[in-house]
């Protein structure tokens, strides 16, 4: 069960012809797939398209009714390989994943798929994780389209354009026997808008039909000599077919008037370009502009005649192409040069080579372009802007702390790193390899653990060189359960077994692919109606040949974790030492348990709710506990007591009583300030009786002592 439920929203997927659909971009994509008669869908979760997978998962009933097969693929490679169903059969298929990390993983399957080509439309929806909000290295998916010769759609970021791109994507794929990549950027995935729906369509041929009537065609299999033919076919047949389709259906759009300067842009850049023109007084609020615009809703292949025609009447054109290398600008430059054009080509000369094209980057880049080449179009004030320098807020910058993402309240991964830090205090620093997932937050304060991250499931693999009999110290590597099943089992664990790696591997098991939004995976403990769960990680590891495997079923036991980790680092046993540390992701657990708990309390059933607290007069304000926690719920507060210099620890009401504070105070021998308060709702009569009795005895003891001493009124904080 994912972090966010789309159960309500997916009802919109049932809308029919002429009805207005209103919602998020990803939901619109799903609706468009169904309108196109898609036969099967799959993918791997990851921002910004995590929610697309969640929508699909929540829409399984609707998909089922239409005869559409849905899979939550094991990896992006699996997802792309699934598109093989469209190789011989006229079935439309779509998969989705984040890019470029997902495309990297998928590229083996992608290259094979692209070589043989497809019969049914094959659509790969990639969430381009570039710019603000991205969690990965900054690269472009464009290169994959070029190298594997698949077509790349980059529609304008509004719902009607995205929906149209899905429709044309399938048709283009079928017309050119080539898979098509549909690229959507982060904010586009979550943009809220509307479009007019059409009826959903049952796939003309379902996967069941195909299974009943198998087909094959050796010409489509990637093996010599067919593979040599594929390479030529790509250029001689498929590319011309694609160009023909793109031109015929005018997938690229031309806007604006007949000016002597023009702007050529990726479709995804359209709103940013228009906003810059609006602010320069050259476009109205609906995007009507005098400036000629060539909008590439297809960014690969480039349509040479369209581009040359657009440039023919211009003195200068600006290419707005986000990210690097500047493939489009280079290609356009070559085209213009070969055709003997004299138009001035600007692009990265006006706009930054690298990084996101934000609003102010666009404004200044396009502003400069127009000032240089078409100053007369601009109002005088804009032609020579008299912009005062931005104010200096140095003191404010100092007062505003950085706030990188970190572990949530009660996160079960926090105690794992607290334990690791304690082990390092005892045994010294180690080389620690990190992986992709929430656990990567360990690299930041307060833990500051981890030296590299090399890819999903590759944490232990990235420590594989550190295996030397000459060293007294072992490496420690982390991998999450998500990465473990994605490819860690073979690439990391298998590799360590085979190469007799002596390092320590910690598998962080939180029951979900948590960082991507809490999707179920093989080892999830939940019962999932459509998926097979509850496959223990430890079984898989043992099956892989690891001899030393320890399973910790409650990560909050910091002492045990510390001792186990210490044992793994010091044992005589050779070969990989694997610790599986399991506790449920707290975000998902709360989401799962809260409604149940609320109902139980309302129904009069006994429910215990735990919270931690700090005795502020016992706390001395050293904050050692924070340095082993970083929990958002554990903070500091200033006491109204002039005798105290430093703020003391305080736990707010968001505390979920995970236990880390108490465990850490114990394991690290910190201080006795923490207390755990368990509130029993609807206690039994017996419990209430005992509670009353104890309270009376305790009250008597308190009164006895307090009657013999001076008692000062407590400060009311």
């Amino acid at each position, binding site marked *: 069960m994912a972090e966010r439920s789309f159960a309500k929203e997916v009802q919109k997927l049932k809308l029919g012809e002429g009805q207005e659909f209103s919602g998020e971009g990803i939901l619109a994509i799903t609706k468009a797939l169904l309108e196109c008669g898609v036969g099967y869908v799959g993918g791997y979760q990851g921002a910004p398209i995590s929610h697309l997978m969640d929508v699909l998962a929540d829409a399984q009933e609707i998909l089922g009714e239409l005869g559409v097969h849905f899979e939550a693929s094991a990896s992006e490679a699996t997802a792309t390989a699934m598109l093989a169903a469209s190789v011989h059969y006229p079935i439309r298929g779509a998969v989705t994943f984040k890019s470029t990390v997902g495309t990297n993983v998928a590229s083996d399957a992608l290259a094979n798929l692209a070589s043989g080509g497809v019969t049914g439309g094959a659509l790969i929806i990639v969430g381009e994780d570039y710019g603000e909000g991205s969690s990965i290295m900054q690269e472009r998916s464009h290169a994959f389209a070029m190298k594997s010769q698949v077509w790349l759609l980059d529609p304008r970021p509004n719902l009607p354009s995205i929906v149209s791109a899905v429709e044309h994507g399938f048709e283009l794929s079928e017309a050119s026997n080539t898979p098509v990549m549909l690229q959507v950027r982060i904010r586009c995935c979550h943009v*809220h808008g509307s479009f007019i729906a059409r009826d959903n369509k049952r796939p003309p041929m379902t996967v069941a039909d195909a299974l009943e009537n198998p087909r094959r065609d050796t010409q489509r299999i990637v093996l010599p000599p067919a593979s040599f033919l594929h390479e030529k076919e790509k250029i001689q047949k498929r590319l011309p077919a694609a160009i023909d389709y793109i031109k015929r259906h005018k997938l690229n759009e031309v806007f604006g008037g007949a000016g002597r300067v023009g702007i050529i842009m990726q479709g995804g850049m359209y709103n940013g370009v228009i906003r810059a023109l609006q602010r320069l007084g050259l476009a109205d609020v609906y995007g009507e502009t005098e400036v000629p615009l060539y909008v590439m809703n297809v960014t690969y292949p480039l349509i040479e005649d369209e581009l040359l025609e657009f440039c023919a009447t211009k003195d200068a054109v600006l290419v707005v192409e986000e990210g690097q290398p500047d493939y489009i600008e280079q290609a356009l430059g070559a085209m213009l040069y070969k055709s003997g054009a004299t138009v001035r080509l600007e692009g990265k000369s006006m706009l930054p080579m690298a990084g996101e094209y934000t609003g102010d980057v666009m404004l200044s880049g396009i502003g400069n372009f127009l000032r240089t080449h078409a100053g007369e179009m601009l109002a005088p004030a804009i032609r020579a802007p008299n912009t005062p320098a931005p104010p200096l807020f140095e003191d404010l910058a100092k007062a505003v702390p950085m706030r990188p993402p970190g572990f949530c309240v009660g996160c079960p991964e926090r105690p794992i790193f607290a334990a690791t830090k304690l082990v390092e205090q005892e045994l010294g620093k180690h080389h620690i390899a990190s992986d992709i997932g929430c656990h990567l937050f360990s690299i930041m304060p307060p833990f500051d653990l981890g030296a590299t991250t090399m890819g999903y499931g590759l944490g232990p693999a990235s420590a594989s060189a550190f295996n030397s009999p000459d060293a007294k110290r072992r490496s420690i590597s982390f991998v999450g359960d998500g990465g473990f099943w994605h490819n860690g089992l073979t690439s990391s664990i298998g590799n360590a077994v085979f190469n007799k790696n002596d390092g320590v591997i910690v598998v962080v098991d939180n029951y979900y692919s948590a960082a991507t939004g809490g999707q179920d995976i093989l080892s999830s403990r939940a019962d999932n109606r459509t998926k097979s769960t509850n496959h223990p990680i430890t079984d898989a590891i043992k099956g892989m040949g690891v001899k030393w495997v320890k399973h910790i079923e409650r990560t909050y036991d910091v002492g045990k974790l510390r001792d186990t980790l210490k044992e793994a680092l010091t044992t005589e046993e050779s070969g990989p030492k694997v610790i599986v540390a399991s506790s449920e992701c707290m975000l998902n657990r709360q989401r799962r348990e809260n409604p149940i708990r609320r109902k139980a309390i309302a129904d009069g059933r006994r429910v215990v709710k735990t919270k931690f607290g700090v005795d502020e007069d016992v706390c001395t304000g050293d904050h050692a506990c924070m*340095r082993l926690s970083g929990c958002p719920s554990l903070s500091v507060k200033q006491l109204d007591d002039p005798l105290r210099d430093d703020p003391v620890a305080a736990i707010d009401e968001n505390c979920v009583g995970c236990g880390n504070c108490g465990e850490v105070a114990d394991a690290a021998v910190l201080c006795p300030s923490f207390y755990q308060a368990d509130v029993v709702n609807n206690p039994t009569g017996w419990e209430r009786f005992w509670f009353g009795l*104890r309270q009376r005895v305790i009250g008597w003891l308190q009164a006895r002592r307090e009657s013999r001493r001076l008692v000062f009124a407590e400060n009311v904080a």
Partner: protein
Amino acid sequence: MTFGLPEGPDSTRGVIKLAILAVGGQGGGVLTNWITDLAMRCGWHVQATSVAGVAQRTGATIYYLEMMPKDPARPEARPVFALSPSPGDVDIVIAAELAEAGRAVLRGFVTPDRTALIASNHRMLAVSEKIIPGDGRADGNKVLERVGEASRRFVHFDMEAIAKQAGTVISASLFGALAGSGELPFPRSEFEATIKAGGRGADASLAAFAAAFERAAAKEVPVAPERMEAPGHGVAVRGPGKLQKEWDGLCDRVAAFPEQVREMAGLGLRKVVDFLDCAYGREYLDRLEKIIASDRADKDYAFSREAAKYVANGMVYDDIIRVADLKTRSARAERVRREVRLKGEQTLLTTEYFHPRMQEIVGLLPARLGAGIESHPGLMDRLNRFVDRGRRIRTDSIVGFGMLWVIGGLRRWRRSLLRHKVEAEHLGKWLDLALEKKAEDYELGVEVLKCRRLIKGYSDTHARGHSKFDRVLSCLPMLKGRGDAADWIRRLREAALADADGVALDGAIRTVRSFTEEAKENAG
């Protein structure tokens, strides 16, 4: 003030641009959906975007909306909205926390010519602020001041508290503040209809909405509540008549102190008496009187004031007896009940997390016996094996509570115990050192007193504090005779509080060493 924005015929002036800055998990998404729904309800064009993903996990996040009324002449036309906010081009910024309001200003989203900033002025501390051994909190007043200057209008109050009071989350009070500010041209009823349409939890949300609405709509900025009168002389106290009389006598002595010292001495006295007894209070005042007698009125009794504070803190050391005593008081039980909001029919279990080691246990023994054991490391180790483990004590049970109650009762024998002897000696030495330095250099004496702040915590943390204290004071000989010695001790102390491992302190000590050695060489 503009950020590269030319003054021109911007055609999007009729578009309301709204950015929400929040901390992941605060419910910025809910607020975004509400505002989207509200605008659609009112027949406007609206577009909302967000950045989801792992960035949302407790980190700074941003949501962005643009909206404009539909043109009756062009009902089919759709405006082209931007997907992210641009510096200098935002009309309304909502910040769900004070530092995030500051971040909005730093990112240029708040400009005095047009931006209304609606912010909750409570703080959610970032990890970097919490892990400093001293006080690492950012300067909230600076943020308030700068943010106020940077915005056209600044609506701020504690919206988190309002939400909490109503039993809901901050998105509701932010929505209320937005409505109350009147920055959006929609009637209150439409805001409320939006919340009601959300279903579950609507009542609590509406309550928080209403409270925040009234606050934001009020013309006058409410004055911050008066700082509470610091307790001191005449503080509420109860107890047997004989002790009360003794206490009054002690208070009379404080009353005779110079005004500058009185408040701190009153608080110190209370702390010391609370720790042990009135006799201990007398001891404290004896010390202070001696110090005051040798102090200087022209220095405003700065030394005595700091002594009143730090001698009290030094005399009230953190031993097991004090912890047990504090945890078994009725006021404490009351506080815990308040904190968990214990209701009538609920019952409460409390567990205390202790991890005593032999060092602490030895401190509880009579001085001679304790010192004897301590002088045999082998024996200490062996005994430690029985002692050194985490102990979870249930203070709602009679046995657990009784155990702590008995330990708390050891209070009256404290003077004969090892820990007391050690602490008293340390205190004496430190005070003598401060007095000695004061005689040479008044300010230096004050700074030596203030170094007491470094000693805090329990077990290893306490030992580390002691070591920092010693290392800072070990620089005194190097600084001898220098006019800026006091300033250097202050800097060393601040360095010691900057991080746990003493990296900053090491650096500061190296600096002191380098220039003092240089001075020596030059002299030689």
